[in-house]
């Protein structure tokens, strides 16, 4: 499902990741551990597509697609999800609006119709109950 | 803690001026007044090369066409420029070879100010250039510095001994027609310090100049030029005092700094000119143009000023960040009391890429004084990724004084990140100032230790 081969990553000409290899099969849970500064967050950011980092070597396949040339939003639409250690707060953007925009972007990518505001609210309520 | 703070503030704001005495010393002066002949005479007495005279005359001709700036938040009484002596030198032997040759009266004056000129008495790690009225009296530690190729001498001497270096750099940061007072200084400047740090040299000691106005009716127009070549470092300290007189005296100085690649210059000032008496009588009019050019990539210029003196202060130590990745800093504590007026701040001109600047200014007004911060942060169109942060806080002690903030932010590049913050409050009111005071105290200590040295 996810395959990382010999991944090298630089930031401002400083090499942070020097040849990472990792294979994750469907259903597997992997925990990556290491001391501070060993590159765990960098790896996650690079997979999600943070443009601050430069991939100098290697490849990353997700469900068989090479994702390194994809924009972060396309990786997300493919189903890659990065959970932020410190989520960004954007004042003025309501939770509901943000979630709906996000969902509709992904639906559009999958060729589905956008969900209306009222349907979305219904969906939210259902999910809340289910949770 | 709080009581100590109060004590220091009390001391600084209400204390009598300790340096107000006058030394009776035989002077060699030109008559009052200003014209081309006076300028020629100054240049002649200083034995200057032709280029310097031309520089002065051109500046003078420009000055004649200029007007006194009136944009500052200052009430500047009209200055009679013909009623000022433009050259006054303590009469002494032409060249000082040892301490014994310094006029004992002069030596006593600087001893009384706490500025020992004898090297054995010297505080460790500080080399001093003492300037009284128009001329440099004595520069200490010269030989030690010379071993490293560092030149630290009076600017008059530099003009004679190193004319090429001076010619190349003088007026390159503050052009002679930059502003009214800069033009005046360029025409008549008397003396000041010259510093040259060669490539790759870290100046091992703190360089210091002590300026003293002594003679009556005399203007002091010193000029300082600091050149730091690639990969060099120097820290420079300036102090000043003047006798108490009922008449106002004019001080119009220029400081120019050039920092080449990766060079770092720290410039600190303790300005303690006579501020006038409690009723606002007398005091120095202080009109100063200080500017540093971060010419090389990764260069850095840092200004620190403690301003407690002068009846009027008009002063904006600035940084022109020309080199990529260069840094400018400005730290200021300005204290005004009685009838003092201060309009001071900085200009950070971002020209190169990835340049950074930091401005921290603390103003304290007491009595009937007016204290203004005036600053410009300019990011030019080509200055990619410029960063600036400015913090200006003012504190008011009493309800008859004023504290003002006039920042200008001119941003012409969309990659810039610029932030300005300012607060004004009463002492003890806000947490902001507990933090501020903690920063203040060491600086004030520095101020008093310098003048009580």
């Amino acid at each position, binding site marked *: 499902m996810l395959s990382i081969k010999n991944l090298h990553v630089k930031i401002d000409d400083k090499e942070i990741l020097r040849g990472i290899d990792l294979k994750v099969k469907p259903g597997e849970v992997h925990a990556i551990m290491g001391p501070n500064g060993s590159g765990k967050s960098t790896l996650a950011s690079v997979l*999600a*597509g*943070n*443009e*601050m980092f430069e991939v100098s070597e290697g490849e990353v396949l997700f469900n068989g697609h090479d994702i390194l040339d994809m*924009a*972060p*939003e396309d990786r*997300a*639409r493919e189903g890659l*999800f*990065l959970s932020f250690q410190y*989520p*960004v707060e*954007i*004042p*003025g*953007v309501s939770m509901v609006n*943000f979630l709906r*925009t*996000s969902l509709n*972007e*992904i639906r559009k*990518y999958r060729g589905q119709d956008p969900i209306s505001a009222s349907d979305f609210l219904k969906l939210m309520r259902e999910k809340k109950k289910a949770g | 803690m709080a009581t100590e703070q109060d004590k220091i503030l009390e001391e600084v704001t209400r204390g009598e001026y300790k340096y107000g005495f006058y030394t009776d010393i035989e002077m060699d002066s030109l008559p009052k007044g200003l014209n081309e002949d006076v300028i020629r005479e100054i240049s002649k007495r200083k034995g200057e090369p032709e280029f310097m005279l031309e520089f002065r005359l051109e500046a003078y001709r420009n000055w004649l066409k200029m007007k006194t700036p009136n*944009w500052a*938040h200052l009430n500047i009484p009209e200055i009679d420029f013909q009623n000022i002596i433009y050259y006054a030198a303590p009469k002494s032997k032409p060249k000082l070879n040892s301490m014994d040759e310094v006029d004992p009266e002069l030596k006593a004056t600087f001893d009384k100010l706490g500025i020992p000129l004898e090297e054995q008495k010297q505080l460790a790690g500080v080399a001093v250039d003492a300037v009284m009225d128009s001329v440099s009296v004595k520069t200490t530690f010269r030989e030690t510095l010379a071993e490293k190729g560092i030149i630290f001498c009076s600017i008059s001497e530099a003009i004679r001994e190193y004319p090429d270096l001076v010619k190349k750099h003088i007026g390159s940061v503050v052009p002679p027609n930059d502003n009214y007072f800069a033009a005046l200084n360029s025409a008549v400047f008397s003396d000041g310090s010259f510093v040259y740090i060669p490539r790759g040299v870290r100046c091992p000691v703190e360089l210091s100049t002590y300026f003293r106005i002594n003679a009556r009716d005399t203007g002091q127009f010193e000029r300082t030029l600091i050149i730091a070549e690639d990969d060099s470092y120097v820290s420079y300290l300036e102090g000043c005092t003047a006798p108490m007189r009922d008449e106002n005296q004019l001080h119009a100085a220029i400081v120019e700094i050039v920092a080449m690649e990766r060079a770092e210059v720290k410039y600190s000032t303790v300005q303690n000119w006579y501020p006038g008496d409690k009723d606002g009588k007398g005091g120095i009019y202080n009109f100063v143009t200080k500017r540093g050019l971060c010419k090389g990539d990764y260069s850095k210029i840092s200004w620190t000023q403690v301003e407690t003196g002068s009846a009027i202060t008009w002063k904006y130590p600035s940084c022109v960040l020309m080199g990529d990745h260069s840094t400018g800093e400005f730290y200021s504590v300005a204290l005004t009391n009685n009838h003092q007026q201060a309009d001071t701040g900085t200009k950070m001109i971002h020209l190169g890429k990835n340049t950074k600047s930091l401005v921290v200014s603390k103003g304290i007004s007491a009595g009937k004084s007016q204290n203004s911060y005036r600053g410009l942060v300019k*990011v030019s*169109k080509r200055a990619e990724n410029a960063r600036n942060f400015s913090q200006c806080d*003012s504190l*008011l*002690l*009493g*309800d*008859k*004084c*004023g*504290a*003002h*903030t*006039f*920042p*200008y*932010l001119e*941003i*012409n*590049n*969309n*990659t*810039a*990140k*610029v*932030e*300005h*913050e*300012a*607060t*004004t*409050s*009463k002492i003890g*009111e806000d947490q902001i100032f507990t933090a501020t005071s903690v920063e203040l105290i060491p600086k004030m200590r520095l101020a008093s230790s310098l003048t009580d040295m």
Partner: protein
Amino acid sequence: MDNVIKNIIGRDVTLDGLFEENRSLIEGNSSSVMNALRSDAFEAFRRLGIPSNKVEDYKYTNLQPLFSGDYSLSLTPDTLVENVEDIFSCDVDTLDSITIFIVNGWYYARNKPDGLPDGVRIGSLAQLAKEDPSFLEKYYGKNAPYLSDGIVAMNTMFASDGFYIHIPRGVTVEKPIQIVNILMSEEPLMTNQRNLIVLEENSEARVMVCDHTLTSDKFVINNVTEGFVDRNARLDFYNLQNQHNATTQVAGFYIEQKEDSHVKTNNLTLHTGVGRNNITLKLAGTHAEGHTYGLYLLDKNQHVDNFSFIDHAVPDCFSDELFKGVLDDHATGAFTGKIMVRPDAQKTNAYQSNNNLLLTKDAKINTKPQLEIYADDVKCSHGATVGQLDEEAMFYLRTRGINREEATILLMYAFAYEVIEKIQVEPLREQIRTLVEKRFRGELDKCHSCVVCGQKGTGVSCM
């Protein structure tokens, strides 16, 4: 003097010459209260002229070239054949307002402000000057600095008409009062509109002024509004600017507040050519509260300069100020926030903030927050920032599947939101919210809609 315009109406004539030529016409159409100030204003104007960028308060907006060129002057009321309501109709059904129109600086003759509470007067300033001169005399020229600011002097020289609103003691006007400023002309036009808002003790009103250009000709507009808000009265004031690119508008708002009064102004610039707002709040009674807000969304070659002056003249007052700007393309912006705390204005609390987003290489902003403080027991602060969209927030949104364009709009909107949420008239807030979003999506054709008024069938394209 050469600091006044030439070439008005195709001839070489200065503004003062033009005034002298037309003085008898202007004075004949007007009445004694307004005419009484013309000589002093004229004298001041001859001394000051149109402000250039050499005048410190106009450092970032040189008005001189903008006030020169071929213009006719709007010196007489327009004789509109059409019914103005046929040209405009209110777009927002939910906004139940009292609406009046001003056409080219003149009070539209067929205005019928209905449903006003007892004693409330809304009408033409020129009429007021004729019918109730003693009322107007109490206020006219009392706040606007016609002796020290050339542009106000000019307005006071030429002023003929505009609107006035008078809310008597103790009256609350529930419905928002909406003033629609319409500019329509067959040739380039210069107008000098003068307005007056008086709120007596314990009264309350919400006033919205909507600036709109209807024809594609060039307009130069010089508006002055004086406001008097008495003890414990409350005024919410909104100015929505939605004009085409060939518009130059200087709008001065000079408001004085008495004890315990509450004033809120909000200047929203959605579209214009060159805009300059002069917003002055004089806090002249203790415990008065003044809020000034503004939002400017600029692109193309637009230039907007918001100049505010919050004058704390007495103790115990509060003021708060927030201006935000988004600058795209070649747009330039300027902001000056001057807070003055006069001697003895103790216990003043004054806060101010100006934030700007620059979206392109060619956009520029000059900001000048200022504190001038002569009393010690105060708390004042100001802050100014210039920056870009937060890259971290951008990345976050993108990892949630939102593309860069959409995320940019979301973030710009989030930036502007802080000012929008200050709007207390809810239908208006919703309308602005939508308009701002449309504006960011590039969907807002300035002719598409004024904020509250749609424009029907004039076929004028956005410039």
